[in-house]
C-alpha cells in the first residue's frame, strides 16, 4: 500500500496529548462499529443458547445448543433455506463471473469513448436491489411478462415463473446474476488495466494466438482480482435479503427463502428470538469462513 507519507514517526519527544491524537481521531468510528456490529454479534451468540420470545425477551430458558439441533433436525424451513442460499450463492457467483469477465474483456481498455458505456453497464449494480427485484418482477410475470413473450418466439409455452418453486429459484438466480455481474466487470477491468502491454507484445512476437494470450497471460495475472471478487461476492451473496423480498417475497411458499428471510420469519412472525439468533450465528459462520480467507489474502497483499 503506497502511503503518501506518515510523518511524526517518533513519539518520544512529543507530549502525551499528541500521542493520543490518532486514537482520539479513530475513536468515534471504532466505538460506533463496536456498538452496532461487534457487541450485538457476541450478544447474539449468547442469546442463541436461550429459548426466548420477542414478545417477552426477559423470560427465557437456557437451552444450550437446543436451538441449533432444532434448526437442523426439526425445521424444514431452515434446511431448505440453507440449501437454497448455498445454491443461489454458488450459481450466481459462477454465472456473474463468466458474464463479468466477458464484459471486462470486451470493454478493455477503457478510454474516453468507452467511459459512458462502462457507466451504463454498471447501472444494475448501483441501483437499489428493491427496484431491481421490482423491475424484474414485471419481466417474470406469467401473462404480461417480457420473458414469456421472448420465449414465445422460441416456441416455448408461457411459464409461471414466480408460481413454481424451481422456476422462481431460477428467476431469482438470473436476476441476481444480472445485478452482480457489473461488480465483477468493475474489479476485473481494474485488474486488466494493471497487466503490462509488453507481455502481449512479446507473446505476439512469439506467434501466440488470442486464446493462448488469454490462457497464459490474462487469466493468470487476473487471478488476484478474481479471488477478491469470489471472496467478497460470496460473503455478500450469503446474506441476500432485499432482492428476494422485492422479487418473490420468499415464495412460492417458502421455496426462495434465504437464511436472512428465515431469520426475519423466526423473529418477526413467530417471535422466536432463540431460533432467530441461532440462524444468524450460522450465517455468521458461513460468511466468517470466507471473511477469514479475505483477511488473510489482504494481509498478504499489504505486506508485499
Amino acid at each position, binding site marked *: 500500500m503506497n502511503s503518501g507519507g506518515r510523518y511524526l514517526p517518533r513519539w518520544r519527544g512529543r507530549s502525551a496529548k499528541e500521542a493520543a491524537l490518532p486514537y482520539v481521531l479513530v475513536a468515534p468510528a471504532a466505538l460506533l462499529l463496536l456498538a452496532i456490529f461487534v457487541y450485538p454479534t457476541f450478544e447474539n451468540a449468547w442469546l442463541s443458547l436461550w429459548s426466548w420470545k420477542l414478545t417477552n425477551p426477559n423470560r427465557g430458558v437456557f437451552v444450550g445448543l437446543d436451538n441449533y439441533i432444532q434448526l437442523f433436525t426439526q425445521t424444514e424451513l431452515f434446511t431448505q433455506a440453507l440449501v437454497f442460499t448455498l445454491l443461489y450463492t454458488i450459481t450466481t457467483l459462477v454465472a456473474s463471473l463468466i458474464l463479468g469477465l466477458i464484459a471486462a474483456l470486451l470493454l478493455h481498455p477503457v478510454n474516453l469513448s468507452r467511459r459512458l458505456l462502462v457507466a451504463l453497464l454498471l447501472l444494475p449494480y448501483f441501483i437499489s436491489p428493491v427496484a431491481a427485484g421490482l423491475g424484474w418482477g414485471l419481466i417474470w410475470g406469467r401473462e404480461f411478462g417480457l420473458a414469456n413473450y421472448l420465449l414465445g418466439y422460441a416456441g416455448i409455452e408461457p411459464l409461471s415463473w414466480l408460481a413454481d418453486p424451481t422456476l422462481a429459484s431460477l428467476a431469482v438466480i438470473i436476476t441476481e446474476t444480472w445485478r452482480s455481474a457489473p461488480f465483477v466487470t468493475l474489479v476485473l477491468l481494474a485488474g486488466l488495466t494493471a497487466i503490462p502491454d509488453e507481455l502481449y507484445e512479446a507473446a505476439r512476437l512469439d506467434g501466440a494466438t488470442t486464446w493462448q494470450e488469454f490462457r497464459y497471460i490474462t487469466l493468470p495475472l487476473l487471478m488476484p482480482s478474481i479471488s477478491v471478487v469470489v471472496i467478497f461476492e460470496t460473503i455478500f451473496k450469503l446474506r441476500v435479503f432485499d432482492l428476494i423480498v422485492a422479487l418473490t417475497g420468499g415464495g412460492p411458499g417458502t421455496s426462495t427463502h434465504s437464511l436472512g428471510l428465515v431469520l426475519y420469519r423466526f423473529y418477526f412472525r413467530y417471535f422466536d*428470538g432463540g431460533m432467530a439468533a441461532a440462524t*444468524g450465528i450460522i450465517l455468521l459462520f458461513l460468511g466468517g469462513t470466507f471473511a477469514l480467507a479475505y483477511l488473510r489474502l489482504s494481509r498478504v497483499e499489504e505486506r508485499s
Partner: protein
Amino acid sequence: MTRSFGRAFTLRDFVRVASLMTLLLFSLMPILWLVMTSFKTRLQIFASPPAVLFYPNVDAWLRLLQPGPLRQALLNSIMTATYTTIITIVIGSLAAYAFSRFKFRGGATLLFGILAARLLPPINSVVVLYLLATRLQLADTILGLVILYTALLVPIAIWLLRTAFDGVPKELEEAAFIDGCGRFQALWKITVPLAAPGIAVTALLVFILSWNEFLFAYLFTSSKATTIPVLLAKAVGEFGVDWADLTAQATVLLIPVFIVCLVAQRHLISGLSGGALK
C-alpha cells in the same frame, strides 16, 4: 492493446461490437422496462403481447405529485441519506486521516478490525439492536436509521478516504505547519481541498448506498421513518397493486443513481474498484 486508427473494420471488431450491444441491452432493458411501465395505462401494462411502442401516459406521475405515502417516504429517504453522508464523512475522515498520517501502536490492527467489522452480517445485529432500539425509542426514527447507516458505511468511507489522504503529499501539510498554521488549520486549508475529489466520490457513494439501503429500514421502521425502498417492498406484495404507481415510485428511487453514475463515471473505475466496494 492499443489499436490504430484507420484500420479496416474486421469480423472480430464486428463480433466485439455486437457482443457489447447485447450486453448493454441485457443490462439496461430491465431498468428501461421499469421506467417505461410507469408511463403505461393499466390496459397497456397487462397487454399481451407487451406494449413496446405506446403513447406515454403521465397519470401515475401526476398522482405522485399529490399528497400521498411517497411524499413522506421521499422526505425520509432524503433526510436519512443526507445526514448519514455528512456524519459518515466527518467520522470517516477523522479516522482515515489518522490512518493515513500517523504511525501509532495498534494502528494496523485497528484498521483491519474496522474493515473486518463490515464483513459481519448486519442482520445478525438486528436481533439484539431491535430490542435495544425499542427500549431507547429509536425504532421508527430517522435518528435511529442514521446511526445504523453510519456504522454500516463508515468502514468503506474510511477505506476510500484513506486513499484520498494518502494522495496528498505530506510535505505541503508540513510546510503549512512550519509556516505557523496549527495542525487543524493545515488540515482544513491544505489537505481537505487537495483531497476534495476523493472525498466527493466517497460522499456520493455513501449517499447512494444509504439511499438504497433496505434491510435496516425494513426492520427498524414501521410508519413514521419509512424510506422509499421499504414503501416499495411493502406495496409489491399487496393484492391489486397499481404497477404504474409502483414503477413511478421506483423510478424516483433510481434518479439519484442515474445522476451519480453519469456524473462520477470518470471515477467509477479508478476510485471504486480497490476491492473495498459494497
